[in-house]
C-alpha cells in the first residue's frame, strides 16, 4: 500500500496544527458557528443528533494492521469502543468530543491517516473496488490512480468551496464493484482499439434526491492527462454549478441542464489551457504510484492441490464449507483466496465493528494477509490475500469472534446508513428495519435459495444507504411526523446500472418484514430456472410485485 514520505507527513501534520488552531479559536468564540462549520466538516466532523460524528478517511478502503490497531485505540480512548464502516469505505466514530478532535487527528497522523475532506462541499475520499489488485477480472489495478487523485484532491486550493460535495470512484475490472455510474465522476480503466489502457470518464452520476446515471464525457483518455482533465471538469463545475439551491447543486444537475455535449465542450475548452501543463503525469510518477501496489510477496503454490485439499476440508466440515462458498472469492494468484468478513451479524448494526474486533482483524491481517485489510462500500471488511491452506484456521478465529456470518451478497448482507438513531439529517430510523428483516429471514437455506440480493436502506433522501441502487431499496420518509418507509425495486450498482422504481405508497415500520416477504414470495413464484431477483424483476416488471404487496396490505 501507499507509504508516506516526508512530504506527505508534513502536509498531514500541518493540517492537524491548522485544525487545532481553528478549534481553539472556535472554542474561544473567535470563529462563528457558521464559519467553523465548513472548517470542521472538511476535517470530518459533523454535529449530529446525540454527539458529534467524526468520519476518518480510508483512502480507497485500504488499511494496514497498525492503522487498525490505532483505530481500535482511538475508539476506546475517545469514543465508546466501537466504530462504523461507512458506505464510502470510511470509518466513523459516533461519540467523539469536539474539543478532542485535534488530538484524535494527531493520533491518526502518527499512522498516516487523516479525516481530510471526508465531508463538506469539496472532493471527497476516492473509492474503488474492494478486490482491487487481487480480482481475477481486473484489467489493471485502480489504486495507483486513486492515490494520484487522493494527492491531487487533498487540500486543493481551487476546489475546497464547491457548490456541493464531489465524489470520485475508479474501477479497473470487468465487473464494476465501485459503482462508478453513481458518482460525480466515475473512471473506468479501459483498453482502446490499439489495446492501450486508458481512462473512460463518466460525469454526473449520483444518488440523493435526484438519482442519475453518469454520462460519458470522454470515451478514452491517455492516463497522463488524468489530473488536467479532472481539473477541467472541476473548474467547469466550480464556475457554473448552481449555488442558489443546495438540492440542485450537484454536478449531475449541471450536466443535465447543459446537456452532456455542451458540458463536454465546456470541459474541452477549459482543458485546452491545462492540457500538457505541469500537472500532466510523468511516466516516473505513474511508475512510482504503481510500485506501492505491486502486490505482496506471494508464495509459489500449487493452486490445484490447494483447491483439492480445500474441497476435502469443506466436505468434512460443511459449516466451514458453506462459509468458503459464501464469503470467499477466487484470487488471481494460485493458492490464495479473497476473504470477505461479514459485519452483518443479526443483532448488530450493519457495518459496526468493536475495538476488540478491530484488534482481531489487525492480528488476523498480520497472520494471514500480509498485514493489510480493506473496508468495502457494502460495509464489510476484506482480507485480500489468504492462503487457501490457511482458510480453516482463519475461519475458526473469525467464528469465535462472531465475524463469520456466511451471508456475503445475500439478503441479510444489508447496506444501511446509521439513520435516525444517530444522524441529524435522517427522517426515519434505518437500523431497526435492517434488524427486523434480518430476524425474519434467519433461515439461511431460504436466503441462499433466493440467490444474490442487494437490500439497501437509507434513513433519508440523502441516500447514504444507496437505496436507489439496491435490487430492493428502502427509504425512510417523514409523513406528518411519523416514520414511514418507501420501497423501490430494480436498482443496480453494477455495469448494467439502473435506478430502482418506487413500488407505491409507503409502509409503517412494523409492516416492513411482511412487505419484504411478499416481494420475495412474488419473485420465488415468478422466477424461471436460475433467474436472479434482478433478472426476474427486469423481465416481469413492477406490477406483479405491486399487486401482491398492496393486495396483502388491504
Amino acid at each position, binding site marked *: 500500500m501507499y*507509504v508516506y*514520505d*516526508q*512530504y506527505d507527513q*508534513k*502536509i498531514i501534520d*500541518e*493540517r492537524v*496544527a*491548522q485544525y487545532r*488552531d*481553528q478549534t481553539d479559536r472556535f472554542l474561544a468564540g473567535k*470563529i462563528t458557528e457558521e*464559519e467553523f462549520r*465548513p*472548517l470542521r466538516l472538511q476535517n470530518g466532523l459533523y454535529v449530529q443528533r446525540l454527539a458529534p460524528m467524526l468520519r476518518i478517511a480510508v483512502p480507497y478502503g485500504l488499511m494496514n494492521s497498525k492503522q487498525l490497531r490505532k483505530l481500535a485505540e482511538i475508539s476506546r480512548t475517545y469514543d465508546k469502543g466501537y466504530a462504523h464502516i461507512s458506505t464510502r469505505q470510511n470509518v466513523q466514530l459516533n461519540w467523539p468530543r469536539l474539543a478532542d478532535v485535534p488530538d484524535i487527528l494527531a493520533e491518526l497522523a502518527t499512522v498516516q491517516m487523516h479525516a481530510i475532506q471526508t465531508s463538506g*462541499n469539496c472532493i471527497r475520499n476516492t473509492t474503488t473496488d474492494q478486490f482491487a489488485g487481487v480480482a481475477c477480472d481486473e484489467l489493471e489495478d485502480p489504486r495507483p490512480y486513486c492515490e*494520484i487523485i487522493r*494527492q*491531487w484532491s*487533498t*487540500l*486543493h*486550493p*481551487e*476546489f*475546497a*468551496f*464547491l457548490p456541493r460535495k464531489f465524489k470520485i470512484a475508479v474501477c479497473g475490472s470487468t465487473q464494476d464493484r465501485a459503482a462508478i455510474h453513481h458518482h460525480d465522476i466515475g473512471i473506468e480503466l479501459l483498453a482502446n482499439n490499439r489495446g492501450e489502457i486508458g481512462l473512460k470518464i463518466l460525469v454526473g452520476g449520483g444518488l440523493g434526491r435526484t438519482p442519475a446515471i453518469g454520462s460519458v464525457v470522454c470515451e478514452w483518455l491517455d492516463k497522463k492527462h488524468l*489530473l488536467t482533465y479532472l481539473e477541467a471538469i472541476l*473548474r467547469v463545475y*466550480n*464556475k457554473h454549478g448552481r*449555488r442558489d439551491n443546495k438540492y440542485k447543486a450537484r454536478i449531475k444537475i449541471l450536466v443535465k441542464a447543459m446537456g452532456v455535449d455542451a458540458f463536454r465542450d465546456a470541459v474541452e475548452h477549459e482543458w485546452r*489551457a491545462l492540457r500538457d*501543463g*505541469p*500537472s500532466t*503525469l*510523468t511516466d516516473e*510518477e505513474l511508475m*512510482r504510484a504503481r510500485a506501492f501496489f505491486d502486490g505482496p510477496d506471494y508464495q509459489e503454490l500449487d493452486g490445484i492441490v490447494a483447491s483439492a485439499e480445500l474441497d476435502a476440508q469443506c466436505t468434512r466440515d460443511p459449516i466451514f464449507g458453506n462459509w468458503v462458498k459464501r464469503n470467499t472469492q477466487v484470487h488471481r494468484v494460485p493458492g490464495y483466496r479473497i476473504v470477505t468478513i461479514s459485519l452483518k451479524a443479526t443483532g448488530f448494526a450493519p457495518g459496526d465493528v468493536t475495538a476488540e474486533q478491530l484488534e482481531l482483524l489487525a492480528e488476523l491481517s498480520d497472520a494471514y494477509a500480509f498485514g493489510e485489510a480493506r473496508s468495502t462500500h457494502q460495509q464489510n471488511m476484506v482480507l485480500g490475500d489468504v492462503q487457501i491452506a490457511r482458510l480453516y484456521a482463519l475461519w475458526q478465529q473469525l467464528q469465535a469472534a462472531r465475524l463469520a456470518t456466511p451471508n456475503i451478497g445475500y439478503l441479510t448482507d444489508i447496506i444501511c446508513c446509521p439513520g435516525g438513531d444517530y444522524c441529524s439529517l435522517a427522517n426515519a430510523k434505518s437500523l431497526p428495519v435492517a434488524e427486523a428483516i434480518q430476524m425474519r429471514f434467519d433461515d439461511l437455506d431460504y436466503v441462499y435459495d433466493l440467490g444474490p440480493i442487494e437490500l439497501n436502506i437509507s434513513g433519508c433522501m440523502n441516500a447514504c444507504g444507496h437505496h436507489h441502487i439496491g435490487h430492493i431499496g428502502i427509504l425512510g420518509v417523514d409523513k406528518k411526523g411519523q416514520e414511514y418507509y418507501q420501497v423501490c425495486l430494480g436498482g443496480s450498482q453494477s455495469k448494467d446500472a439502473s435506478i430502482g422504481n418506487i413500488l407505491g405508497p409507503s409502509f409503517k415500520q412494523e409492516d416492513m418484514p411482511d412487505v419484504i416477504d411478499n416481494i420475495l414470495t412474488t419473485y420465488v413464484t415468478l422466477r424461471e430456472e436460475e433467474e436472479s431477483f434482478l433478472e426476474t424483476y427486469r423481465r416481469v416488471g413492477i406490477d406483479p410485485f405491486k399487486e401482491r404487496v398492496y393486495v396483502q396490505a388491504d
Partner: protein
Amino acid sequence: MSRLIKQGLVTDDTWLPLNPDIAIPAPRQICNLEQWLQIADKNGSAVQLESGQEPAPLFDFLEQIQLVVIHFPVFTDGRGFSYARDLREHGYCGELRAGGHFIRDQLTYLRRCGFDAFQLADESGLEDALASLGDFSEHYQAAIDQPLPLFRRRTRTTR
C-alpha cells in the same frame, strides 16, 4: 483609508472604494464591471468582479489593468478561486485582491490561486490573520504560487 493585507503585510489601501452610483469613476477608483467596460482608457484601471462575472472580458486588457478585486458574496461561494486562477493563467500580473466575505482560514487557498491582497471584512482581525498565510509549507498540487505539482519536485530520500 481602509487597510488590507498585501504582499504578506498589513498596509493602507491606496485605491478609492467602488461607488456603483456614479457614471464615471474617478482616477484610482475601483470600477464595477459595467463602469469598467464604459471607460475608454483602461490603462491603470481597477475593476471588481462579482460572483457570476467571469473574468473573460478582461483578458484583452490584462497588461493595462492595475487591480482586479474579486468579491466574495459569502465565504462558501468558491467561484472566485477559479476566477483568480483564470486571470493568472492568462498572464495577469497586477494586484489581485480578495474582497467581501471570505475568512482568514481561506488565506492559504486564496494565495495559492493567485491572490496577493486580502481585504477582510473585519479589519481588526488583519494582524492575527497573517498567521494563516503560513498554515502550509508544502502542497500536492500545482497552483499559481507553485506551478509544479509535488510529483515533479519530490526528492526521494526516505524510501
